[in-house]
């Protein structure tokens, strides 16, 4: 839903980091299961945001991280599928806690020098 705002913020961050005379080749990000972000929609929004800029071919590489549900006795619930949350530990019925999965981070960018005759209009 708000993937476009996220893509715009990401593009802004990337351009701040960009060395002069370079264009973006790849952008690596971490997205967690609890981040309320749909990676496919974010890739789509990214294409819209970079279109028409010198970075139009920049690809967005999304690494998705699941959240862990933890039982105080049995440890991490192993068989949980993404999106299917459990109310209790399937083994001992203890209440569970949640760890991680809230990533929404820029990790790294790769850049390519622009041809000398092309000015980056950002």
């Amino acid at each position, binding site marked *: *839903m*708000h993937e476009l*705002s*996220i893509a715009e*913020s*990401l593009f*802004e*961050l*990337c351009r701040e*980091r960009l*060395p002069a005379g*370079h264009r973006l*080749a790849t952008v690596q*990000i971490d997205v967690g*299961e*609890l*981040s*309320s*972000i749909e990676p496919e929609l974010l890739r789509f929004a990214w294409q819209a945001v970079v279109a028409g800029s010198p970075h139009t071919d920049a690809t967005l590489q999304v690494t998705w991280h699941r*959240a862990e*549900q933890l039982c105080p006795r049995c440890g991490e619930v192993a068989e949980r599928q993404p999106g299917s*949350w*459990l*109310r*209790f530990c399937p083994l001992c019925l203890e*209440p*569970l*806690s*949640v760890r991680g999965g*809230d990533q*929404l*981070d*820029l*990790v*790294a*960018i*790769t*850049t*390519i020098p622009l041809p000398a005759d092309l000015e980056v209009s950002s």
Partner: protein
Amino acid sequence: MTTLDARQQILAANQAAAQELRQRFVAQGTYVVNLISSPGSGKTTLLATLARKLGRRQRCAVVVGDIATELDADRLRAAGMPAHQIVTGGSCHLDARMVAGALDVARFGMLDLLLIENVGNLVCPANYDLGEHCKMVLLSVTEGADKPFKYPGIFSKADIAVLTKWDLRNVVPFDERAVVQQIQALRPGGRILRASSITDEGIDELCTLLEQRVGACKAAAQR
């Protein structure tokens, strides 16, 4: 090809603006709640009820976000709550810069409690820190019992969950146990309250909780 390690939150700019707001709220001793729910689960109605109950004892105000209209702020002002409307013009969430801008214009003066009514949406507002002390999520009993697991982002981040329209719990099928267990799984230790703005059930408990936090916030600011 050059690779640059660039580890940073994607919403770093919003985070910085939120941090500035938070420092201001903490210094002033203003407790701030970011109110989030789907459309129609009773945010504005609950705030009008709080205006009636809390307004006499605490200096309260509301910043309210809506995609298109000023109707919510009008309703709250009619209930005696100072209110400033942010019309987001299509944006599905408030961000920290919108709130900072609204506070500059609204000039509420010193406040004990600032309530920020976010745009009706359980997804996008979860990502945007507004400098608040706590997120409060509302879920009405008419919405269906699977909502917490459908929207785990916000239910894992909200410190207080209020089950609203509590007077209707016997009128509609509502599995309280399932909802409570889901919320507890996503946010162990979070507070879960039940409230009805029609019968006033649970409203005093919510007011007491908020006033405790207002008091603690004020005491911390004076230290």
